[in-house]
């Protein structure tokens, strides 16, 4: 395994583009090192991006949007009061990953690029409408985050491409987000089901909504029918029931060591309702 620690994204791209065999980028390493230790993936080339300027920064832009460096850790996000105030669901989703120790290293980008349908931060990013900068041999483009996952363990990034920044939209007024996951313990588990809800209200009425589900399909899902169930409602029982039904209907899970098809499908509806209530309360302030 060759270890590289470039100081610019262009260097990182060149190394990755020229590398033979398996290449991995190293930010927090909380997945890469586990796979290495478990003899699942031993990269031929490992590119540590933490020495690149800006990768540790959390910046709020003039328009209220946020740019997060790709090496920003969960702990750094949780400690950022303004980010927490504006995007509590996104920060909480990130914070749910692993232990305090894992929070000291794990990153949004790593969670995304690991390609797990059960990644906690990914449904929250989907719901929040996060975009990422993808830098490759042909330059940098901005891509909605939901276009990154391709299937379990797979992304749509091409050889030589990497994510170079995370962009979180401006919160604006009347917005609120939430993420909930189901795990059998209180901590340390992989989500059996995850659900992100992001919405905006005018008065009591929901005007915009986005609902995402994790661990119920090969990739994280954006569930349009679930969003439709919310839009125009005041989150009354009928809307919540429609939401739950739409969430359950969108599920295409597997039965595995963490949960059954039936369990995941049912709990997706339960979590959607609970997350929607939290997001709604937050949006109303």
């Amino acid at each position, binding site marked *: 395994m060759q270890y590289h620690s470039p100081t610019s994204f262009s260097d990182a791209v060149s190394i990755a583009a020229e590398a033979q065999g398996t290449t991995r980028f190293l930010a927090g390493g909380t997945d890469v090192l586990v796979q290495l230790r478990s*003899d699942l993936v031993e990269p031929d080339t490992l590119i540590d991006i933490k020495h690149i300027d800006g990768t540790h920064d959390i910046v709020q832009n003039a328009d209220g949007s946020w740019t997060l460096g790709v090496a920003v850790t969960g702990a750094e996000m949780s400690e950022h009061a303004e980010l927490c105030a504006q995007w509590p669901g996104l920060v909480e989703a990130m914070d749910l990953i692993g232990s305090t120790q894992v929070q000291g290293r794990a990153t949004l980008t790593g969670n995304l690029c690991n390609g797990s349908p059960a990644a906690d931060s990914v449904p929250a990013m989907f719901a929040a409408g996060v975009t990422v900068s993808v830098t490759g041999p042909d330059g940098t483009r901005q891509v909605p985050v939901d276009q990154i996952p391709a299937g379990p363990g797979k992304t749509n990034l091409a050889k030589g491409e990497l994510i170079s920044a995370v962009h979180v939209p401006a919160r604006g007024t009347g917005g609120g987000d939430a993420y909930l996951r189901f795990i*059998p*313990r209180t901590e*340390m588990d*992989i989500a059996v089901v995850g659900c992100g809800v992001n919405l905006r209200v005018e008065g009591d009425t929901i005007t915009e909504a986005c609902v995402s589900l994790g661990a119920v399909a090969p990739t994280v899902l954006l569930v349009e029918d679930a969003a439709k169930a919310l839009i125009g409602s005041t989150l009354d029982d009928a809307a919540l029931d429609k939401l739950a039904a739409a969430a359950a209907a969108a599920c295409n899970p597997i039965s595995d*060591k963490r949960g059954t098809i039936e369990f995941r*499908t*049912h*709990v997706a509806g*339960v979590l959607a309702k609970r997350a929607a209530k939290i997001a709604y309360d937050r949006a109303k302030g």
Partner: protein
Amino acid sequence: MALDSLKTDGFKQIGTRPNRPDGLDKVTGRALYGADVTAPGMLWGVIVRSPHAHAKIVKIDTSKAEAMDGVKAVVTRADFSDAIQPAAGPRGEMWNVLENVMAGDKALYDGHAVAAVAATSQLAARDAAKAIVVEYEVLPHVTDVDKAMAADAPVIREGATEKSVPEGMHPNVVRYHESGHGDLEAGFAEADLVIEDTFKTEATHQGYIEPHACLGTLGGDGKGELWCCTQGHWNVQKVCAALLGLETSQLRVTASEIGGGFGGKTAVFIEPVALALSRKANKPVKIVMNRADVFRATGPTASTSMDIKIGMKKDGTITAASGLFRCQGGAFPGAPMEFTAMCAFAPYNLQAVKQTGFDVMTNRPKQAAYRAPGSPMAAFAVESVIDQLCNQLGLDPIDTRLKNASREGTQASFGPKWDRIGLVETLEAAKAHPHYSEPLKEGQGRGVSCGFWFNHGGETAVSLALSEDGTVQLAVGTPDIGGSRASMAMMAAEELGIPYENVRCTIADTATLGYNEISHGSRVTYASGLATIKAARDAVKKLCARAAAKWGIEEDAVKWEDGCAVPSGPNAGDHEPLPLAKITAKMGATGGPIVGHFEATPEGAGVSFATHIVDAEVDKETGKTTISRYTVVQDAGKAIHPTYVEGQFQGGAAQGIGWALNEEYIYGEDGRLQNAGFLDYRIPVASDLPMIDAVIVEVPNPGHPYGVRGVGETSICPPLAAIANAVSAAAGVRLKQLPMSPPRILAALGTHD
């Protein structure tokens, strides 16, 4: 062994809570565990394991690995003794151990060791292990206990069946137990309500945080040194010597600090492999298991399938009880079904009872002891049915248990009459505890259960040497798995009448003391404690003799009081008390070193009962359980160091909570273990648990000088049932299978189908 009169009060040391002697080393990182030592020129060993549940080993090609840089030795089964032959029953156990340490013709489970390699670094050894090519012919497998007994199940090994197994059973059923007394039919006929039900539990792992680790050196001269984390180093010595064809005493084994065992480190797995590699490479070899291999290849407990039938009168009297216990213990005989059977109804005084046990082989790792092996599962099944009976008959669960409770003189379900036991005292203490009368909140359920474990004595040798300055070097042979060095020092100090700090207790290596049985069966504070007391009394006798000689009086005219030799009465003359340190200061010139000894097999380990109370909440939308309050009440006989007794109670309860709610071995259709890591083998984390209230009941054990009963194991017997009863009450539906994971609870609630 004749027992002296019991001393249960008037103690100076016993019952106090001094700091543990190993505390400083453990909080500073200095304590040396299995993986913490190195030797000059040391190699690293890595074991190659079968990815198949059941497969014929056709060929092992080690040539590529052997050609790699830094590789110094490769071993397979051919490098172990061929003098050990298979046999049915305990006589075949050494062969079973060998077969488990290194597979012979067949790999019998996912994770079974098939070869090993030693190289100059851990990475080099890992790379070399990957280069060993094993050709397998995959065979049909079975991992479920009920399926393994079915007619069409693949036979794991012919010839392993003991004669006691009734004819007509599948060859995978290798041992059988049946016991009981009274007329079952008449008993059930007398009952107002009979409940019959089936229960299942999954295998769980002891889950110690320290993986198995050892460092071994073995020369061509047959002399060896071994450092390892184990609950019993004399057993390691014996097994390694047999497996490698050595003379036992030529191998010296030193027990490291041990990072948890709970029964799982009573067995031998990697130590003979390290020695075999060392013999071949002529260098020290260290092996440290990784966590996945700990789960795949070291002993989980048995999984079970159990049928229970109990009859009760309206007034709560149990009229008859029967149980059928099928225990799966992996690809070897040894599932603790006789203990499951014998412990099942032990808390109850029954006129008619019958228990039947089956030991069943499957393609899983060889089960190892886990804290009261076999008993918790039995309690889960039996105490669940008792709870159902109480619910349906409108009876209080503690009153009903008290009404039927085993007491001194009643006949145990497994035969003999009980000696002095403390079940009733634990039930009464539980009933009086504020927890039991605290009103439940909406959505909560409360569960109660009793639990029982036999406890054990075992071969024990202790040596207590006095130093010239009057301090004491106490050498015991039972690895300290729960603070026993403190308890031993307290008992020695008590007998000698000196400060606790003046006693240094160490765990001696195998060259220093006679054979000590493993630290198991909750035996350490009982047996090594008894041995320490006897060794101290032996030393006192010798101290008194020195005083008698100095004073020119008969030895029996001197007694020991508050750390001094004193004349035993007015007729012995007028002599100033002679403190211990004054005698030892001159001992070289008055007869030589003074050392107290004890070597025997104490046979008076008192049994132990416990009663637990649990409150649980169930989220009926997701099936998630929260334990909101937990109280342990257990008979300790006499608590030497109450804080450590509480620690055993709390630890057992916490492990029981894990077993009840989330821990399980999950095998895929392919027979491979799917959750070989702490991520998906879900032991309780700090945020999962409430504080655990520990109530110590003391009903002295007549078999120990201070009344000590072992406490380590009984604490894991009641939790499974107590939690199942609480969860069932909270959910409004009876849970009959462990773990009570959220999907199982939702399925039981019929929330989805």
